């Protein structure tokens, strides 16, 4: 199979493994917390679970987007023939990634501030915001636009979250981990831009660090939910 030099099979393999690992940890967090949510019906736990469910789905849809973008640089005939369909589906895939990841970020932040800022019908509000970001991503056809909008959203939410933070609560580094998850996600979107390709070593370091954050979250979950 002739491969265009732009397509790096090692990068593709690392991206696939990375996505799978993140997806597995997200689903583990989601399913492991099912019982304590069923018992307590606690709103914070509910949104925490949703955040990881949607992060998992966002990572899964991101790898599809990745394949679509980089299929352009593959000379393999069957893929090249399917390229037209891929390129037509690209905006749709962009829309899905934007929608799922925006919801994930909103749910993660809201899970920590819902007590201080209980928004009625938050599910509807968050879906409207996510839909707006998704439509912008669909029209623009660029994953970078998603990361810029989400970055703005994230900064606003962090400022708000810091203001609303209860001073007497013990520090657990959970918020720092949440912010890292969101930042790694945004970097993941930037990496999708073929113009801004990272060297393999940098990419691997970044992926390992990102997995480390998810492992840390899972470890904390496992400590309480055995």
């Amino acid at each position, binding site marked *: 199979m002739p491969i265009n030099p732009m397509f790096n099979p090692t990068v593709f393999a690392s991206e696939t493994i990375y996505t799978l690992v993140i997806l597995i940890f997200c689903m583990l967090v989601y399913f492991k917390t099912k*019982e304590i949510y069923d*018992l307590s019906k606690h709103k914070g736990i509910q949104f*925490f679970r949703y955040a990881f469910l949607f992060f998992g789905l966002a990572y899964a849809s991101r790898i599809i987007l990745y394949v679509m973008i980089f299929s352009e640089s593959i000379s393999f005939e069957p893929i090249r023939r399917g390229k037209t369909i891929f390129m037509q589906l690209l905006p749709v895939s962009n829309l899905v990634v934007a929608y799922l990841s925006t919801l994930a970020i909103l749910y993660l932040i809201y899970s920590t501030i819902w007590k201080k800022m209980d928004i009625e019908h938050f599910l509807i509000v968050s879906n409207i915001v996510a839909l707006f970001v998704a439509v912008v991503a669909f029209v623009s056809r660029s994953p970078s636009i998603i990361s810029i909008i989400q970055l703005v959203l994230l900064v606003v939410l962090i400022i708000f979250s810091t203001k609303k933070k209860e001073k007497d*609560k013990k520090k657990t580094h*959970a*918020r720092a981990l949440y912010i890292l998850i969101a930042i790694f996600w945004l970097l993941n979107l930037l990496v999708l831009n073929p113009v801004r390709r990272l060297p393999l070593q940098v990419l691997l370091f970044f992926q390992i660090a990102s997995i480390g954050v998810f492992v840390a979250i899972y470890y904390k979950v496992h400590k*309480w939910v055995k």
Partner: protein
Amino acid sequence: MGKMNKKRERLEVIYDFLKIIQDNHNSIKPTPLLRKSNLSSQSFSEYFEELLSKELIKEMKNGKGRKYITLTDKGFRYLEKYKYILGFIDEFEL
């Protein structure tokens, strides 16, 4: 069993509610439960309905046709997991 007061969090009220039932050999009539829970009648009814709908407790009738309340398996699980639920909420600042 600590006295119930209005400032307690919802999860703690539920815990105390279920604990009263458990401490009474898993069988208590509604009136003593209301008294021991130290909740207003309205709050008591709300919690009672909520716990019934969540299947943490169930209403039974004895041989004389009198109502009494018992914990379900889910209710026992709640008591068992309560500390972990609180720990989890604190750990993740939820």
